[in-house]
């Protein structure tokens, strides 16, 4: 019985690259652009974000004021760029500090087991069952309004998800053989946790951190919108939307700050999804990078990979042509290189002839 590799029209290399890494790159570019703008704000922007000029109020977008002016005649674009400074830094502080605390707590809980784990996780559950915004609202209202107080309020509610994730990761890791091996060598618990388990379990955490940065920015903007974030003259996106909320005719006042939030959060989501699609572990990320190079695998199983690399889309791969795990071939590196080169030429030849590639099943 003859088996057939079903080969479809090749996609251009650029399209393939875009499909795989396009969104993540776009997200990364958005974030980098915002960070650069935020850092360079005082040098890039010609207006002062808090310069009030009532005579110039509510000007629509024009060449002078690209995104118009608000109810006090302040330049909306300048304020958005300055607002990026607050939003981005608050997001980073909340997620990094809260994430670090939660991760350590969860990891220690999972590693300690027994009553300590129970107690720590019940506390986590307790905080977890509040919607963050309500608790943050109560705290922000009680502490008083101000950026630092809001950050504190957000930190109080931010860590539990990290604690839960870290705990489940450590639990799934600690029964694995390498932990046992490390214990038998005589490493202490701290060393095992910090140097063995955490590096191996860090993938999903990286994804959560990325996605959460967007979420933190969103929540902070929300609190500011409610008037619990920054003190009024400060330029902040959520507060700016709140200021323009009643101005339906002067839509630019509220629309553009909202768009700023949307793009930043989407950027972080793109990057987070991109990282997650690689499979969430450092090992998988390395594998993803290795795939971009020519893979060295067993000869016959190697053909589909090459067909793919040559720009064809494999619609269906017969079972005995599935790619093997990378790096477990019995062939030595030199062997593999030679055979790989031969295969590569084989496929190039197939390509130049433009024929569908057929293989005879050995068992037939």
């Amino acid at each position: 019985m003859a088996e057939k590799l079903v080969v479809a029209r090749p996609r251009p290399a650029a399209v393939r690259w875009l499909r795989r890494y396009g969104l993540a790159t776009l997200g990364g570019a958005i974030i980098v652009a915002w960070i650069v703008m935020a850092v360079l704000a005082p040098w890039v922007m010609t207006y002062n974000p808090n310069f009030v000029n009532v005579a110039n109020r509510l000007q629509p977008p024009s060449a002078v004021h690209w995104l118009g002016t608000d109810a006090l005649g302040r330049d909306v674009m300048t304020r958005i760029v300055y607002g990026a400074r607050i939003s981005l830094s608050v997001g980073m502080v909340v997620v990094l500090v809260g994430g670090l605390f939660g991760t350590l707590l969860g990891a220690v809980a999972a590693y300690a087991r027994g009553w300590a784990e129970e107690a720590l996780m019940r506390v986590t559950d307790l905080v977890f069952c509040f919607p963050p915004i309500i608790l943050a609202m109560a705290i922000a209202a009680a502490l008083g309004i101000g950026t630092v107080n809001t950050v504190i309020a957000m930190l109080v509610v931010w860590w539990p998800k990290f604690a839960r994730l870290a705990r489940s990761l450590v639990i799934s890791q600690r029964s694995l053989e390498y932990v046992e091996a490390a214990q038998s060598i005589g490493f202490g618990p701290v060393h095992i946790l910090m140097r063995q388990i955490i590096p191996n379990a860090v993938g999903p955490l990286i994804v959560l951190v990325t996605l959460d940065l967007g979420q933190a920015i969103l929540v902070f903007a929300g609190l500011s919108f409610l008037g619990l974030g920054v003190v009024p003259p400060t330029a902040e996106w959520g507060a700016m939307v709140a200021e323009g909320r009643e101005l339906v005719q002067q839509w630019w006042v509220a629309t553009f700050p909202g768009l700023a939030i949307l793009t930043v959060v989407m950027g972080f989501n793109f990057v987070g999804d991109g990282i997650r699609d690689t499979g969430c572990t450092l090992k998988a990320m390395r594998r993803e990078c290795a795939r971009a190079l020519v893979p060295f695998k067993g000869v016959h199983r190697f053909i589909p990979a090459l067909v793919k690399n040559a720009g064809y889309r494999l619609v269906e791969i017969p079972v005995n042509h599935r790619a093997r795990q990378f790096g477990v071939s019995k062939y030595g590196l030199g062997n593999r290189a030679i055979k790989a080169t031969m295969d590569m030429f084989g496929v190039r030849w197939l390509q130049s002839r433009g024929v569908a590639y057929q293989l005879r099943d050995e068992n037939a």
Partner: protein
Amino acid sequence: MIRYVVSRLVTAAVMVLLATLVIFLIANTVPGDPALAAMGDMQASDPVQVREFRARWGLDLPLWEQYWLFLQRIAQGDLGISISSRRPVVDDIIDYAPATIELATIAFVLSLLVGLPLGIIAAVRRDSWVDHAARFVALVGVSAPTFWLAFIMLAIFYGQLAWAPGPGRLDPIAFPPERITGLLLIDTAWVGDWETFRDAAAHLVLPSIVLAASTLGLITRTTRAAMLEALSQDYVRVARAKGLLARVVVTGHALPNAMLPVVTLGGLAYANLLTGAVMTETVFGWPGLGRYTFRSAVAVDFPAIMAITAIVAAVFVLVNLLVDLSYALLDPRVVKA
């Protein structure tokens, strides 16, 4: 099974109590004086009046006694008297809750009706334009700030096009129906007042779409991921090899197995909608629990905050319990274990 439910309910009650304790401690340890917040500037400058005020609301007792009082009253179904509105908190909540329940339920149903099919189709037709469109919609839904989305919707559909009515639950000139459940749709339909019914329904359209957006994104994403996972399993291949219709394979084999994460997330999302619609309610002038929470938080209104916390915690714990119980229905393996 019954033992399981009872033990879960007991745990739930303990969790709710602990939650109120936590919020109680937070509210009391942070600076912020409810007496000063509730009284006017004139009164607050008079120490005698301040002392009287504290005595009246039990604010001068030691902390643990205040908490004990709170527990005693909660056992009698009394959640205390709101400092800012000077009414029993229970009455306030009964007033505000129906608006939120109505809005949250409709938004939730909306996001399920759109999100589930979208996620399923996206997974079945992976990498097609439907998939890309679904992912884009989900992403925008998750990333767009609710308050901004609400503003945009209002500006376009109310301000520019005048297709939708403005903020609020009813037109200012409309007569609200006699209160039976407080859910306007049900109340008006009960009396047969279809004009007001239509008005109430029209007022629900924009806020429920805005509120549904983020939930919709989450549900679409989760459904898609779970369906992709299920579709790659061996039993799906077997079902296909047997020659079953694609429709049967998807809805009969893959879908039930993909439901667990969706149910978990859906439950959490619904609880979140019930308790956390602050932004939407603010922009749409919706007299719901979210606004009430916000106002009590800003006024440092202890009794109200405590009562809301208890309710929020109870809603979350109960929804979680329901989700766990539904596992048993969805996945027979859960019961055996």
